[in-house]
């Protein structure tokens, strides 16, 4: 079997704390 090249597109991720903030604001927005 051939080895695949390393995936090329780096997906930028928010930090865990930033995710928390996004989640809180989403919850606030929803009724």
């Amino acid at each position: 079997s051939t080895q695949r090249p390393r995936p090329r597109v780096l997906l930028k991720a928010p930090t865990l704390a930033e995710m928390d903030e996004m989640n809180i604001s989403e919850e606030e927005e929803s009724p």
Partner: protein
Amino acid sequence: RPVNIPRKEKDFQGMLEYKKDDELKLIKNLILELKPRGVAVNLIPGLPAYILFMCVRHADYINDDQRVRSLLTSTINGIKKILKKRSDDFETVSFWLSNTCRFLHCLKQYSGEEAFMKHNTPRQNDHCLRNFDLAEYRQVISDLAIQIYQQLTKVMESVLQPMIVSGMLEHETIQGVSGLKPTGLRKRTSSIADEGTYTLDSIVRQLNNFHSIMCQHGMDPELIKQIVKQMFYIIGSVTLNNLLLRKDMCSWSKGMQIRYNVSQLEEWLRDKNLQTSGAKETLEPLIQAAQLLQVKKKTDEDAEAICSMCNALTTAQIVKVLNLYTPVNEFEERVTASFIRTIQVRLQNRKDSPQLLMDAKHIFPVTFPFNPSSLALESIQIPGSMNLGFLLRV
């Protein structure tokens, strides 16, 4: 209507396809409403992690970065949500710590990075992610695992806390010792064994319970070792702190009882093959305090022996134990003030902390050593009981 033609395992590529609209349902059924008890007993350990990763693989395969991002974010938020809801349930926290670590290992094992591919089969190498590098998400998931580890420590502490003083210090199990009371001190409990009193057996049973749950969840062995070390640190520090505050715990016979209790905990470690966990070493201050209660405390030679023996205790702790020491019979003597001064002079060059009590809330730094799995993703089948019929094996 599609015809359901049974396919051979080798025809699957180890991916799970789902509709974008089903992402919420996936998180709900797989994370928020999953009962760890049923899953742990009946299914492959780490199954939720493998399912989530197989969904990530499909999103990567169709080169849909939004879908990958959305799934990873929803997964992380779902895990956080269930851990908030069942924050004091050891089974839930242990279950999601195991699965979060397994998910992290999958993201590494199938990342396409050579360092993580060493133990892969050729088929597993074929299953590596094609389009996206998820290194940044791996960092977020590793941070999440650290948070869950800290939560697990707090849960263990709250369960063990009420048992420790009773089981490690107050309850007496050694025959012939229990009758000996320090002079002038009355027994705090009635002579009839109190119902509801915790004993060392209660602690050992609780350790067995924690250990068996973690094993059922397929927790990484190296992680179990770290958790056990943390449990032992809690037991050792709470016991020592109470000994340092209670005169009735500072006697020769208590020293003997503590050493017996510690030996039982050590036996538990051997029984579970956890001798290399570093757990025993966390009991060293307590072991030395118990020895200090039992050695002679009179001559200069005794002082020298105590100073070289008690290297895991601070000067403040050694002096406190000597001050609190209470003879149990006429053959023993109270420690003289001059002996304590001799000890203080001998130890004055030590640069140890002036603190008397141990920090019972201390949490050791945790690591999650990479632990690849030999499980073939294409062989994974999802039981109907998980209500994930909307996922399509690809």
